[in-house]
């Protein structure tokens, strides 16, 4: 996501952290969660579940901000997010790279 | 919810339709949904005046499909409910009558029969919906239908219809006709404390995870929870199991449909009611119901004066049909005479139970007026000869 300018209080904002759980035997492989995750945390897995669908897998767990949209948009009750303790403001963190948490 | 003062105990000079409404109120009915249709409308009119006074709900729906569904919904809301209609409206109710049977929903339908098919004779009597009552909804089921022949019986049978519907959990039908509905006679409404009421059995257990809303008791009738009591039940018109979950298999169908039929068959002795007049030693028995039962009296008296030993079996319940009694009589009499205001419906039941042991003679009439007692008399003499 691109900002045309940085919010003034960005350094003071705490970004929530989420933990995604996938109940992959329920997944029917619609890909809604994968494509509509605003932080692209998920990817379609190469493996199959017992019904023959490719469930999502968590490719970038550290990027999850617990927005919960995957949970809302999943038609099959196959994914949910728990909000963890928030991360400190980004200024206090090491600069983020795309590689974090990626496979 | 119901109070003794809500029952209009005493002697009244009222018509059959009004008596039916009062019977419902005496039974504890506090919800009526209907659609105006001649010749049943006085039931709705009476209810629209009475229910708001006694804490009940009256609603005129947009059609009879809606009326039937609304009373089923109200019943699940925990209130005894009823509708009243006539031929065309009865046809429209058939699908959701089936929903009531499948979901085991207590409720009462009063059908004040008129001439058909189609719009037919809105203001004139017939008794041509008796087989529709039995077989009108699709699928296999057993039903309960009562046939009053006077305003007093409109009161009594409507009240009994509520007790049977609560007892056996299904919509129970009262099959009246235009003449009985519009006939004004003395009706005695007993004191409230003298009226025996049966209320649906409630689950004995509080709500819990494993609650089975359709698990029957020994009488094959499941106890019934109402919506909003925390049982979180699922109720569906689909074939279902004891949990209420839809199960689309032959095995589930067999189990459920057998029980729905058996709960009526197994308890038929409790349900069936007949009034017998001089059947002991009779050569001929007139099997009749509703207004035709009363028309028969004149013919029966005339035949008796002519020396024919003739009695009457008046069917107070049409369904379940009193098979045992008709079978027993068939072995003793020369024949049955069956006058009905249709071209032959209950006569097939009589014939089936007679099973060739005696003659069965239909006196058909397509409706619009009562039989000429002379026609019934002629049939009695013919069978007696």
């Amino acid at each position: 996501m691109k900002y045309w300018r940085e919010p003034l209080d960005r350094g003071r904002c705490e970004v929530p952290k989420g933990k995604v759980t996938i109940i992959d035997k329920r997944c029917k492989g619609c890909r809604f969660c994968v494509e509509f995750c605003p932080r692209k945390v998920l990817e379609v897995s190469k493996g199959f579940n017992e019904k023959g669908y490719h469930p999502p897998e968590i490719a970038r767990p550290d990027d999850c901000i617990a927005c919960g949209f995957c949970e809302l948009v999943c038609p099959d009750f196959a994914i949910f997010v728990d909000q963890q303790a928030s991360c400190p403001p980004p200024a206090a963190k090491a600069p983020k790279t795309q590689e974090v948490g990626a496979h | 919810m119901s109070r003794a003062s809500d029952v209009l105990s005493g002697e009244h000079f009222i018509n059959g339709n009004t008596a039916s409404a009062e019977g419902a109120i005496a039974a504890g009915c506090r919800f009526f949904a209907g659609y105006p249709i001649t010749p049943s409308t006085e039931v709705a009119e009476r209810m629209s005046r009475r229910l708001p006074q006694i804490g009940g709900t009256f609603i005129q729906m947009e059609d009879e499909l809606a009326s039937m569904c609304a009373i089923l919904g109200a019943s699940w809301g925990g209130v005894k409910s009823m509708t009243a209609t006539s031929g065309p409206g009865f046809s429209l109710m058939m699908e959701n009558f089936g929903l009531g049977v499948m979901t085991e929903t207590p409720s009462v339908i009063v059908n004040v029969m008129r001439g058909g098919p189609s719009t037919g004779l809105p203001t004139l009597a017939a008794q041509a919906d008796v087989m529709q009552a039995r077989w009108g909804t699709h699928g296999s089921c057993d039903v309960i239908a009562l046939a009053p022949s006077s305003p007093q019986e409109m009161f009594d049978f409507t009240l009994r219809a509520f007790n049977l519907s609560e007892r056996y959990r299904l919509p129970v039908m009262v099959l009246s006709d235009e003449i009985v509905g519009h006939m004004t006679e003395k009706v005695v409404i007993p004191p409230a404390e003298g009226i025996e009421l049966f209320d649906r059995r409630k689950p004995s257990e509080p709500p819990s995870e494993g609650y089975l809303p359709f698990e029957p008791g020994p009488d094959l009738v499941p106890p019934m929870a109402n919506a909003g009591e925390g049982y979180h039940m699922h109720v569906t018109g689909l074939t279902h199991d004891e949990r209420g979950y839809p199960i689309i298999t032959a095995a589930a169908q067999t189990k459920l449909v057998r029980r729905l039929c058996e709960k009526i068959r197994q308890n038929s002795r409790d349900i069936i009611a007949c009034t017998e007049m001089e059947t002991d030693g009779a050569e001929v028995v007139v099997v009749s119901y509703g207004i035709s039962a009363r028309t028969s009296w004149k013919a029966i008296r005339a035949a008796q004066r002519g020396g024919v030993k003739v009695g009457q079996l008046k069917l107070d319940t049409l369904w379940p049909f009193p098979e045992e009694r008709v079978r027993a009589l068939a072995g003793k009499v020369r024949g049955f005479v069956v006058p009905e205001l249709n071209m032959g419906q209950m006569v097939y039941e009589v014939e089936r139970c007679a099973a060739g042991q005696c003659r069965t003679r239909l006196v058909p009439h397509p409706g619009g007026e009562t039989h000429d007692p002379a026609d019934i008399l002629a049939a009695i003499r013919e069978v007696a000869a």
Partner: protein
Amino acid sequence: MTEGHDEHDLQHHNGSSSVHRDRSGTVALHERHHRETGEHPLDHLLRPGRIPHIWCTGCGLGVVLTAYLNGIQKAGVDLDKVAIVSGIGCTGRIAGYINLDSFHTTHGRALPFATGLKLANPELKVSVISGDGDLFAIGGNHLIHAARRNVDMLVLCVNNFNYGMTGGQVAPTTPVTARTQTSPYGCWEHPFNLPYVAAASGAVYVARWTVLHARRLVESVAEAVRHPGFSFIEVISQCPTNFDRPNKGGEGIDLMHFYEKKTVVKNGIDPKEADIGLYTPIVCGKFVDQSKPTYDSCYTNMCTMARGGKK
């Protein structure tokens, strides 16, 4: 992770398993229960053993069910007093999955059943969830009358533009030119604009969202449940198997992208401006939000009058 996962499942979830361990000491801010058990946070509102549901891959109905369950919780009503009534069709099956009092009635008749239920016990919070064919074709008459009476209930109508359960036939919502099993040369009938019909019939709350607007739908459900009177929410959903395939709309995910790009939210507009064509932009939003005495309150007043008049 749920119980019963085999090795294969665990293998391709290696990443998430390690995350699980890493975070085991942290305090979850909500719903600790399911995090520990691996149960979905809505599982307690779903009937045990009924998931997976019958709906196809890419269908929006599961999203609507999720949104409804979140919305009804958000509304803050006593869940023991909630009753869901549905008719027949793919959407009609929603009632069977919800672990609250639920009634799956006959085709088109959910509304009169719900009317009886609500009037018999006004404490109940009644929601009717059914499809466009059920509510506007076979049940159309009931819809306009329930709205006219302003019976206090929520009607959640999932519009997928066709009869999905019977294999994709033309519906009163099918856009002109759309192909279905019974409009093989393209639909030539004018469709209903559902919010316009509901509003014209007297609904006091009217909104439309697509399945992608899940978050707004949750808010809308919560708002409508609390709103006294007849509330109507239309949810546009794809039917990838029966409608979008013959009309070359793509898979479920393609339709979700279509909703992302081609919907316009216009709150407060006159719903008659919200017609829908075949894959033309969809106007969403809350169109009507007004107050009017409900059937229940009018009936209660009338009863007081009737009792007074008698004495």
